């Protein structure tokens, strides 16, 4: 049974966390000069970079332009050294294509696309170190990068993963827990509106457990949101304080 080693009798997970505990989150906005918005995010050992360019004129075929909405172009790429075994194709393989389209669909729902017709927004995500929760870290990092770029959005998009192990719902899995074969529920929500933007579940899960896991993942997302929002607000306050000093001093 997969859950045996991953959740001890005392209720500790393989990395010493409690079932509802998130991994340590550290992030920094505005790490790149070239990009219009950028962010670096660490969730435990998963390290992700996001860069946003735009809105700018459509590159490539003009035919792709949407006459009434912003065209969001995503690219999800994993560095070749990000996984234990070297990744031969950083992008373009099926998993990356799937991730790319999931990211695009997620952000299509949140960015206020009606404000920028006929132009394009590029979101690039690069995974430097992968230890589970790649999609979640990518979404969170991309949200921060969009905030850094000043792109109007309805709300933050925060993603978190969860599973059900030995009758306990767990939250924010690392690579070992993901690959154990248990069910995995990944959700991306708008924390302030309590709305689900993206939901994916794979492997088998009894329907009685589903709502429990989903509730825990929602709480996990809101916790992540609090951590991210707190720091973003603090940085903003500091910046406006500095601006006040500069303009009045």
């Amino acid at each position, binding site marked *: 049974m997969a859950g045996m080693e991953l959740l001890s009798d005392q209720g500790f997970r393989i990395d010493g966390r409690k079932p509802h505990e998130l991994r340590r989150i550290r992030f920094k906005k505005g790490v790149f000069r*070239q990009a219009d918005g950028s962010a670096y995010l660490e969730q435990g050992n998963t390290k992700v970079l996001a860069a946003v360019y735009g809105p700018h004129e459509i590159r490539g075929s003009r035919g792709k332009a949407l006459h009434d909405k912003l065209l969001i172009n995503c*690219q999800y790429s994993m560095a*070749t050294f990000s996984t234990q075994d070297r990744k031969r194709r950083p992008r373009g393989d099926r998993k990356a294509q799937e991730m790319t389209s999931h990211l695009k669909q997620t952000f299509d729902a949140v960015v206020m696309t009606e404000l920028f017709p006929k132009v394009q927004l590029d979101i690039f995500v690069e995974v430097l170190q992968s230890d589970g929760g790649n999609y979640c870290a990518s979404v969170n990092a991309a949200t921060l990068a969009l905030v850094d770029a000043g792109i109007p959005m309805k709300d933050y998009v925060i993603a978190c993963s969860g599973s059900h192990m030995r009758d306990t719902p767990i939250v924010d899995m690392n690579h070992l827990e993901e690959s154990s074969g248990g069910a995995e529920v990944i959700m991306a929500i708008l924390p302030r509106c309590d709305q689900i933007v993206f939901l994916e579940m794979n492997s088998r899960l009894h329907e009685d457990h589903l709502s429990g896991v989903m509730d825990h993942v929602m709480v996990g997302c809101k916790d992540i949101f609090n951590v991210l929002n707190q720091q973003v607000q603090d940085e903003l306050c500091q910046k406006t304080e500095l601006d006040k000093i500069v303009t009045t001093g």
Partner: protein
Amino acid sequence: MAEQFKMAQPKEYFKKFLENDIRPDNRELGEFRPTVLNIGCVSTAEGSALVKLGNTTVMCGVKAEVAQPDADKPKDGFLVPNVELSALCSPSFRPGPPGEQAQVLSQNMADLLQTSKCINLEDLCICPGKLVWVLHIDLVCLDYDGNVMDACTLALISALKNTSLPAVTVDEDTGDIKTDPTSLSNLPVSCCPVSTSFIIFDHNVLLVDPTNEEERLATGAVTVVVEGENLVSIYKPGGSALTDDQIETCIDRAVERSREASKLIKETLYSIDR
């Protein structure tokens, strides 16, 4: 006012700064941007390094695989460098296959490894004729603000110095390969080649460590790779002609830079060992 002048006549704008022996970002003509080095940042890689040269950021990861050696070189391992300039690092790069610049940089890295002989390929041998290490050295540019070459070489050497390989045993009879992840040995890197890049502006002014804007205005470029007091290579791909004296100045500056950079690498490695 200055912004419009800069946009309308970038060359004249730049010349105004050079008249006072200074550059727009307040550097002297021979001054490097502040260099930040972080070694061993990615734990999934056998060796890793992150270099920030001003705003230019390059991340290097070394992954090791095993393979059969070449029949005519049974004791030599393989070193495979690859530089990636993706759309992430600059609006001037489009998503798609590697462009010309990335391919040229990859080849430059390969040449550097070969000519400087900083890694003895026989050190990568596990079992002569049967199994050798293949080191994939992947350099990813994260922020492109000029002088990617120098950032790449610094990241490359730092990551190689950080690389440790597990002990591998090959069973003679069954051919079984056993890796022991607990016994790691550091990869021996015999020397520390450092590159210094210059651009030639207006056919006669040499500027070290160009930013992206300066590279766009350049009429030529030179890269000098130095190891200790020895010259490893000089790379001058066309562009404005230079005199002997100018090349001498470049070499002198490169030797100075090599000292600074080797010291930085040593100090960083020492600080992570503690």
